[in-house]
């Protein structure tokens, strides 16, 4: 009798477990078919200036709804281009094991908003670098790992991402893992990654450079002058291993029409980088500004007044459109942070962390979409 009761109880327990498993499966299937945050209808960017772009910062934005809202607001501002960072370490935290969830969300929403997405790749997982190094350090022995990841990335997002930037500001020691910046070594990285990317997606445009504008003197422990570094890249044979030059063009406290000068960091320093491209027989190649702009922090020494920031930004977009035929897009830093940085960085943003538009957002939108005040 006791044995019969136990069997019945076990059967009931089994049925309950099967029921629970069924419900969980149902939830999983339903969530797969109907995402928590609907992508919404396919959108188009309306703008009078097709070169307007912005660097978003969705890397650490964990809420999909906020990813979507950010990209919606970029479209509504009238910017067809976005740059976004996809850290290698976030996606391949263990060798060969991938977590694409966040990247998939960003790519899907950007695509649905009708935006052209430029993916910046970098940030080395622990397994691909020596201990006691920063995630911005990559040994030559691990170039193959990065190249394989980059190829896998472009293959996964083929048709949705046509531009990838390899690394960021390699002319700064900070961004080169506190090793001495080395144009030949960076070129070796390009030489390793470029053919693998082209093999899986020949149409994808590989961006290189993204050099920090700096006047670092020779021998500086902090970095190498970007004009010198770019020439050294060409000397090392980089021309064959990138399709588009990525440029960083910050104005600091100069207006966007201030003339280019090798001894000055200003917006039109971009023209000096372009001149180096031309000098090295790369005139047919395009360029994209993937970072830049002005800051209106009340205390930062490189900042301008808020009114100047707006005026300079509008002029810069216009200058890019009217006077720089070699430039495809001007993507300014930075649309929004997921949370306040509590530093001058907060004064580069176009919208606050709570999505309240700053006046600069509204003014760029007015310019881009021909809105009346």
């Amino acid at each position, binding site marked *: 009798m006791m044995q019969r009761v136990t069997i019945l109880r076990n059967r009931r327990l089994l049925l309950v477990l099967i029921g629970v498993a069924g419900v969980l499966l149902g939830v999983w299937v339903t969530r797969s078919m109907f995402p928590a945050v609907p992508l919404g209808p396919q959108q188009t960017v309306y703008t009078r200036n097709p070169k307007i772009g912005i660097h978003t910062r969705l890397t650490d934005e964990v809420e999909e709804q906020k990813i979507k809202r950010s990209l919606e607001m970029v479209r509504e501002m009238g910017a067809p281009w976005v740059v976004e960072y996809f850290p290698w370490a976030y996606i391949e935290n263990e060798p060969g094991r991938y977590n694409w969830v966040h990247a998939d969300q960003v790519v899907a929403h950007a695509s649905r908003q009708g935006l052209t997405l430029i993916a910046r790749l970098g940030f080395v997982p622990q397994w691909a670098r020596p201990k006691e190094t920063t995630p911005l350090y990559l040994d030559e022995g691990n170039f193959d790992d990065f190249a394989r990841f980059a190829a896998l990335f472009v293959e996964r997002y083929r048709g949705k991402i046509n531009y990838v930037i390899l690394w960021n500001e390699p002319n700064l020691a900070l961004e080169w893992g506190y090793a001495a910046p080395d144009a030949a070594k960076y070129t070796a990285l390009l030489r390793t990654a470029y053919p693998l990317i082209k093999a899986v997606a020949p149409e994808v445009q590989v961006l290189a450079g993204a050099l920090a504008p700096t006047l670092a003197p020779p021998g500086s422990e902090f970095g190498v002058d970007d004009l010198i570094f770019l020439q050294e890249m060409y000397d090392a044979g980089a021309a064959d291993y990138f399709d588009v030059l990525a440029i960083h063009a910050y104005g600091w406290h100069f207006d966007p029409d201030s003339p280019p000068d090798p001894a000055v960091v200003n917006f039109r320093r971009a023209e000096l980088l372009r001149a180096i491209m031309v000098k090295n027989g790369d005139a047919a190649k395009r360029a994209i500004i993937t970072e830049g702009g002005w800051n*209106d922090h*009340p*205390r*930062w*020494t490189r900042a301008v*007044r*808020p*009114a*100047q*920031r*707006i005026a300079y930004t509008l002029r810069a977009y216009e200058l890019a459109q009217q006077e720089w035929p070699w430039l495809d897009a001007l993507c300014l830093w930075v649309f929004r942070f997921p*949370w*306040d940085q*509590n*530093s*001058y960085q907060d004064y580069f943003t176009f919208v606050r962390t709570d999505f*309240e*538009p*700053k*006046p*600069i957002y*509204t*003014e760029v939108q007015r310019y881009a979409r021909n809105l009346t005040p």
Partner: protein
Amino acid sequence: MVGLLWLLTAEQSASLLPFLRRDATWQAIQQRGVWRVGLDPSFPPFEMLDANGAPVGYDVDLAHAVAATWGVRAEIVAVGFDSLPDTLKTGKIDSIVSAYPYDERLTQDFRFSAPYFDAGLRIAVPIDSPIRALTDLTGRQVGVEWGSLGDMVGRRLQRNGMAMTLTPFETPDALIGALLDTRQVEAILLDAVSLRQAQGRGLSLRGVDAPLESVPYVIVMPQRAYALQEQVAASLQQLQARGELAKLEERWFGAQAIEEQTE
């Protein structure tokens, strides 16, 4: 006992076990007779360098006044604004007194004093204006500095249904001129520092209503500096009661001819 301590807050535990209340920062200040204060001397009139390169300003005087209430000396350490929190964390300074805005997100890392100055966004009007409160801006011409916090809040008020006309100006001086000289606008949205500086120059301006956005300046201390926080609070109260804070404001901003109206 250990389990009980887990259930208590840090302050409650500390009150039960005096040795947990040990505040190394406060002890060090007393032992060396020096309060090491970090500030970025690039934000007049709160902190700047004089002709001899010495730091001067409201915050410098405030630090000396607070230190004097403890019978110690304030030593000013110049640090870049963005580096101040890290400098405090690493123990190279004991406190930050640098027109530093309160940030609730940093309360896990630092302790804060009560605000000693609110640099937030104010409505400013001529002294003879009938405008007494935010609601009085309905139907008015309101000036803002283009792109500023005032501009952002003004646009927000409009989106939320306030029927006022917003006119942008390129600089704070142009904004104040449009209010007082040309009377192009009837009120302006201006940060409290600029407002107070304008009042100090003798301009007939007054602030009305509470700040539209508050930006309270506070003294920042290490997270474990319980005793120092209490001492700073007591000193600020003492200076307030003695009228020293009002004198400091007058010294660095100029006399305030018009009584503020915040009700």
